[in-house]
């Protein structure tokens, strides 16, 4: 491919992606449910449960106690750890309790439960408070990093890694390229798409701020070619904005999981992040578009991250759409707000159907990383999957073919199933990013991703060496 980066710079905007990675699959998109739905105001919540751990890294310590009063936007939890981010209250009210709440990942985890005042003003989504002329040079790099940390910004693309740590210059891994992830490859979800269409200038501002903070020379915005409008809009904004050198939109092929950072890097830079490594090792930062938008807000307005856009979707939802929701809202409340469920729902998923986590307890609150709530019906899940019909692996090799990390999912899964963890390791279990492609294509309907996940947990437990 030569030097793709320079090719891109000399390329006229094309909305057809030629850049992609090897492997991957094409689940049905189902984005039409919400793609045209503008970002709307979310529910006016009576109570918000702000989890103290919404990110990778150290959990926050509560800064107040039961009965204390809080203001909207007030910092209510923080930690001294480097890899961490504070949490803020989305509403004004009273701390009702600090108690365990259901957490999508951690099971039960402490949260600060805030009861809203009667007259609580809810924040509404603003169309686009930024202009094309935004000049990031008003802010110094340190200022930006500090604001990002204070606002509690973490990656909103899913993993929730504290963004400050990501964008801050690191002498060990100097950064050269920043990739903005606007792929949104996960079926059903459209929140990033809507943000790109509606908050274009804000994203641009965030990108420039992040570029300034990280010192990257090149910014590539990867957008899947099933979103030509987003590609148009973003490209137009770039052309109009000052200091646009080195910022470019790269249309990439529509394929799941194009939005995985390793796949995106492979697609547009033709570089591979080392297995078990992270992008900074090869001088790359990947930020989600929503994260970029949050950065702009945090730096310019000093607004902490207390709300986010959540796509509520799925055939079982009455009024699917994109909502600007206070963090801490319970899933139940949000679904009710969207008109409740129409048909008999089978699964409530935090996230999309490929990587999302099915939850059982609907009081689980929305966190900074919750991009979508998908409620699936039995039909969408499919009979085989719904009834958990599995046959033995016929070694058809489909899972190998689709694995974007070029692993051997069936071998790993079988090794885990038979408790042969050393075999699983010899097949590079740690390289799996749990994208779910393998499980998706498996004709035998084997929960490959599930076994691999289990194996990883097993190994982690083993390595921890539980004291006797």
């Amino acid at each position: 491919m030569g030097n793709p980066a320079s090719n891109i710079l000399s390329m006229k905007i094309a909305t057809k992606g030629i850049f992609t990675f090897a492997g991957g699959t094409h689940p049905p998109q189902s984005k039409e449910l919400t793609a045209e739905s503008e970002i709307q105001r979310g529910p006016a919540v009576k109570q918000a449960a702000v989890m103290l751990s919404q990110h990778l890294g150290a959990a926050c310590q509560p800064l107040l106690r039961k009965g204390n009063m809080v203001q909207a936007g007030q910092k209510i939890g923080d930690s001294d750890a480097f890899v961490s981010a504070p949490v803020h209250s989305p509403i004004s009210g009273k701390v009702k309790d600090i108690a365990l709440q259901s957490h999508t990942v951690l099971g039960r985890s402490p949260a600060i439960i805030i009861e809203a005042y009667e007259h609580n003003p809810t924040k509404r989504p603003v169309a686009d408070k930024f202009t094309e002329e935004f000049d990031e040079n008003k802010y110094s790099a340190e200022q930006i990093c500090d604001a990002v940390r204070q606002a509690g910004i973490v990656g909103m693309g899913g993993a929730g890694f504290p963004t400050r740590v990501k964008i801050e210059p690191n002498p060990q891994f100097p950064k050269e390229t920043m990739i903005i992830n606007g792929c949104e490859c996960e079926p059903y979800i459209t929140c990033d798409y809507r943000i790109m269409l509606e908050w274009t200038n804000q994203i641009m501002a965030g990108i420039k701020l992040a570029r300034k903070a990280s010192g990257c020379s090149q910014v590539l915005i990867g957008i899947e070619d099933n979103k030509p409008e987003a590609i148009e809009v973003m490209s137009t904004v770039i052309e109009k904005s000052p200091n646009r050198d080195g910022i470019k939109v790269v249309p990439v092929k529509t394929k799941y999981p194009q939005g995985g950072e390793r796949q995106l890097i492979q697609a547009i830079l033709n570089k591979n992040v080392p297995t078990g490594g992270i992008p900074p090792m090869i001088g790359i930062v990947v930020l989600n578009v929503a994260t970029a938008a949050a950065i702009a807000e945090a730096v310019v307005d000093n607004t902490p991250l207390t709300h986010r856009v959540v796509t509520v979707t799925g055939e079982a939802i009455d009024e699917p759409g994109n909502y600007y929701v206070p963090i801490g809202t319970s899933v139940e409340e949000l679904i009710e707000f969207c008109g409740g469920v129409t048909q008999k729902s089978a699964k409530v998923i935090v996230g999309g159907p490929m990587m999302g986590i099915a939850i059982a307890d609907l009081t689980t609150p929305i966190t900074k990383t919750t991009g979508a709530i998908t409620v699936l019906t039995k039909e969408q899940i499919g009979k085989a999957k719904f009834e958990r019909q599995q046959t033995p692996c016929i070694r058809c090799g489909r899972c190998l073919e689709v694995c974007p990390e070029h692993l051997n999912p069936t071998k790993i899964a079988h090794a885990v199933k038979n408790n042969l963890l050393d075999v699983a390791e010899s097949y590079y279990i740690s390289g799996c990013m749990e994208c779910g492609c393998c499980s998706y294509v498996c004709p035998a309907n084997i929960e490959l991703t599930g076994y691999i996940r289990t194996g990883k947990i097993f190994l982690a437990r083993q390595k921890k060496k539980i004291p006797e």
Partner: protein
Amino acid sequence: MLTDLRVSCAPHISKPLSTRSVMIDVIIGLVPAVVAAGYYFRIYALILTSTCVISAVVTEWLCNKILKKPNSLDDFSAVVTGIILALSLPPSLPIWAAIIGSVFSIAIGKMVFGGLGSNIFNPAMAGRAFLTACFGMLMTSWTVPATIDTTMPKISAENTIHARTQATPLAWSKQAIKTKTGAEVVNEQFKDTFTGEVGGCLGETSAVALLLGGLYLLIRQTIAWRIPLAVLASAFVFSAIGYLTDNTAYASPLTHLTSGGMLLCAFFIATDPVTAPLTGRGMWIFGIGVGAITMLIRIVGEYPEGIMYAVLLMNAVTPLIDRLCKRIPAGGKPSA
């Protein structure tokens, strides 16, 4: 509000594919060959085929009962095994031998290893190999298709023994290799091997039916394209070497490709996913190996046909191939 929720690992949706649908695809792909067998060898071909299928299915059911395993008939893999075994049997085989073959295929070839997906050797080929070892004479006597009066030696009561054993094009070419003459006669049979008007196993005579079914599987992406390509390409190359050195003794590559079980093997037998390697590179090695061993046996060895042994031998080394062709992760091997 919501009742009866389910939770499980991601992903929560799956491609509308199942083991059964894959197997049914294979069965559909085999239909032309079965029809051709019925056409050329008449009702007895169909009787043999159904015998094999029924006894394979019954054996699987029994084995599941004995081993106290859940019933696995609904994946249709036993049916596929039965059909493929039948297609690889000589048309004159007694019914009881066909039953022994299918029982061996399923019980020893498949179920003792743990059933679908666990077997090392292709069950149908294991069954056929056992039959050959047990009833060699029955397994090497051929009748000529009922449709024709062929240029090949006729089968008749008084002209029995050797005529029968020579009725297949490959037996002819074997003879040609020995006498160093007469390969042209074999090559002239090319048209017949293409349509199927020659002696041979039930399913291997008609190249056109096999190609039709193979194409269907390729289009449906039921089989990996690498294996048929590798098998045919390597067989082509090795037979071409022979042909180019001495075209009076060695039959032409096209004859080799269309005669015997070569096409049946390339599209339906070597592609059995369970017993073939998983990785792309492994499939190449496997396919080339099958083609090469087949040609080695056909040209150098003592048997006119080598497909069965080639497949079984490559099945045996499949685990080693898989190990050799271990995939390297996209990001390279982890350093630690």
